[in-house]
């Protein structure tokens, strides 16, 4: 059972990384506001949180950011730190939203999208030592709504289909 879980998570991890790289090939999002993106990889993160819980979610998110850093953006630079702080905060908040509120998967996904933005802003405020960066926050929040919604709807489908397969 443990081995099965490890293999599944590893495959999901690969999927998350591929989705992230795929997404970087679609240039539209970053043009609207620097730092914003659709967050396709979040589908996998939500999946992990729903079926494996907080600990694996955090580990999964950390490893994913690490691998993407290794492959594309570089390790321990600004982009890496931003992704990490946004990624980890959103996992924690999505888990809390999933466990302790009556939000649907779409709501949880929106929570993930906005807390990802907030995590990045927090990292930026610390890194650049200027509170002014909060100026981006309302724009990022508003943009998180459609992206969180789209990702949420897809995740809902994925999770429902998966449960059907499991039952059968």
């Amino acid at each position, binding site marked *: 059972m443990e081995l099965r879980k490890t293999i599944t998570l590893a495959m999901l991890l690969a999927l998350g990384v591929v989705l992230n790289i795929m997404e970087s090939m679609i240039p539209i999002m970053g043009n609207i506001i620097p730092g914003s993106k659709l967050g396709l990889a979040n589908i996998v993160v939500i999946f992990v949180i729903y079926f494996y819980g907080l600990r694996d979610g955090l580990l999964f998110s950390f490893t994913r950011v690490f691998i993407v850093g290794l492959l594309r953006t570089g390790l321990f630079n600004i982009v890496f730190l931003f992704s990490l702080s946004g990624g980890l905060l959103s996992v924690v908040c999505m888990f809390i939203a999933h466990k302790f509120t009556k939000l*649907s998967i*779409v709501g949880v996904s929106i929570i993930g999208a906005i807390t990802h933005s907030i995590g990045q802003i927090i990292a930026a405020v610390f890194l650049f030592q200027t509170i002014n960066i909060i100026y981006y*926050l309302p724009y990022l929040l508003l943009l998180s709504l459609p992206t969180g919604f789209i990702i949420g709807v897809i995740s809902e489908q994925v999770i429902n289909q998966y449960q059907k397969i499991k039952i059968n």
Partner: protein
Amino acid sequence: MNKNDWILIIIIIFISFSLLLFFKLTNQESNQALVYNDNKLILTIDLTKDDKYQVMGLNGEVDIEVKNNQIRVTSETSNYHLCSKQGYISKSWETIVCLPNKIIIRVTSLDQNYDVILR
């Protein structure tokens, strides 16, 4: 989607617009821009005078332009050119962040009563 999701969406929209309103109300037209490289101030720019500047960032040159009391980055050495896409800024809350270059441009208003500031 359930009722709770809609409440969440409405709350987020409300917070966003409150923040936007707050920034709009507290924003001031400014006369000076500060350029930071890796958190160190390297240049103060007079926004009342149209001009062009060039600073060195982590990856290379960053070109800055001042026009009609506004400031923007015209070109930079980076993959996505995000900070030149951002366009002009001119108000006290606005900031241009050139992430890969570690260059930050902030707009501040200092008292017009001074000819020069020493720091």
